[in-house]
């Protein structure tokens, strides 16, 4: 739940892309080009990505590679997008725990 900024053998320092601002449930958070929506949200300390339909339980990133569909968020009004494989873009509007309106 933080960005790794120190350098080490296995994780040598990197230079992130240029800073962008995205909004999560109306709150602006900082992110960097190249990051996924999930990485930016976790780095900002946001853990609950959506609530389960039946029991309204908090759910979050689990598999991290687009298989489990547990990191679903609403992106720019489009429901049920996988945060773990969607790159951030300047001005992106993310909504967590949004119910699909039928």
């Amino acid at each position, binding site marked *: 739940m933080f960005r*790794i900024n120190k350098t080490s053998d296995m994780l*040598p320092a990197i230079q*992130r892309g240029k800073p962008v601002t995205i909004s999560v449930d109306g709150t602006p958070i900082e992110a*960097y080009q190249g*990051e996924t929506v999930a990485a930016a949200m976790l780095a900002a300390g946001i853990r609950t990505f959506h609530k389960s339909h039946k029991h309204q339980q908090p759910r979050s990133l*689990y598999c991290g590679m687009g298989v489990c569909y547990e990191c679903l968020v609403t992106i720019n009004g489009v429901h049920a997008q996988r945060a773990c494989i969607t790159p951030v873009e300047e001005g992106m509007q993310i909504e967590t725990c949004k119910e699909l309106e039928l």
Partner: protein
Amino acid sequence: MIESYELAVIGAGPAGMEATISAAGFGVRTVLIDNYPQPGGQYFMRIPSAFKVDYENKTETAGRKLINHVLKVPSLKILNCLVWGLFQEDNGSWLVALYGENAPKYIRAKNLILSTGSYDTPIAFPGWTLPGVVTSGGTLVLLKNQRVTPGKRALISGTGPLLFSVAAHLIEAGVEVIALCEANHILPRGIKHAFTMLKQWDRLTEGAKYMKTILGAKTPYKVGWSIVEARGHEAVEQAAIAKMDKSGRPILGTEQVFDVDLVVSGFTLTPNTGLPRMIDCEMTYQAGKGGWIPVRDADCQTSIPGVYVIGDGAGVGGAENARLEGKIAGASVAKNTGHLSPSREKQIRAEIQPGLHQQQRFGALLSDLFTPSVGLVSLLKDDTIICRCEEITLGEIKEAIRMGARSIGEVKMLTRTGMGNCQGRMCEHTVAAIIAHELAGEGVTREEVGYYSIRPPLHPLPQSFLADAVPEE
């Protein structure tokens, strides 16, 4: 107008890239399709193009070379694109159904090479749906590819050598690792594999590097221990672990509880076999290879002529094994399409065989030591969610079995397990293990329990897209 190819390769990881390089190199008209914006797969995933790094390790160098090679090979690449269906036409050709922003809706191919890789075997335990429970693969992608950690204080639990890599990377990232739990009792069985291990020098030196970091941080390595429950309200706050008996059941009274905000779950890998199942390739159950895998001949061809499955998606064997299988399948397609003489193809296969055998021997060692124990189902409680998508509990699954369900298909029909967004990938392993466990007294085996049948669309798609997806000539 649907474009026609001699070969469609689906999945651009180590296996799919080698298959494309091989087949297209011999002149086969090839299209390579992948879900990600860059080839590489999970193993050779590059850091995002917007990031810059001055140093790359041996694996990253090998990956970059392979990716650059495949990008140069004359063949079409369709990236950022899901394959949601495969439909065989009367003349035997395959209609490959695509969903991607810049992708055509369909392409047509005479031969298929399916190289769709694997994913972390999802092992259910009480609390596994809480935010803060993350797979090994997911954790490594965040650390290596995004340079973000999914927690500050972690417990790692599972089985297999990948746990060392996860632990070492977390420690170097600055995450406090409370303990590394290896669920299997590996030590007594490990001795007989010493000789095979010694032939894997690269893997040994890599392992030694991880061990140095883990020992340096004084992280306890607990063999024969496993997570039994993740606890918390809105996210993980605590992890309970226990000592396991020889059959993989927790021993009463051994429980220890730690305050953590991250539980990494890494119980080896499961082959991603959605596409071969969808087209009814004959399947076989091999626990040591990760579960259900397609039956194949020496060319990696399935029970359906012209359809090949290679790499981890055909049985977990690692990246090097995947690359070699890619070369074999690519040459076989080149031979069958008349681009390569049978004698030259035979010669190519003979050159690859020794390396492949070495990989297979090592794979056998890993599966002997690290196959997740069937006893892990005893961790579950009646109110534990097993199917994450449809929120079906152990109690509901047991009720379906009491009502007479004997196969995973019947449990699915009665309870809706496996009918959600993930198409059963997250619950199949556990649901099948539960049925086999409950009906063990009647002699029902894991094979008889079966697997979820897969129908198109393979991934959830917008209805507006599907409504408009009828192929035109």
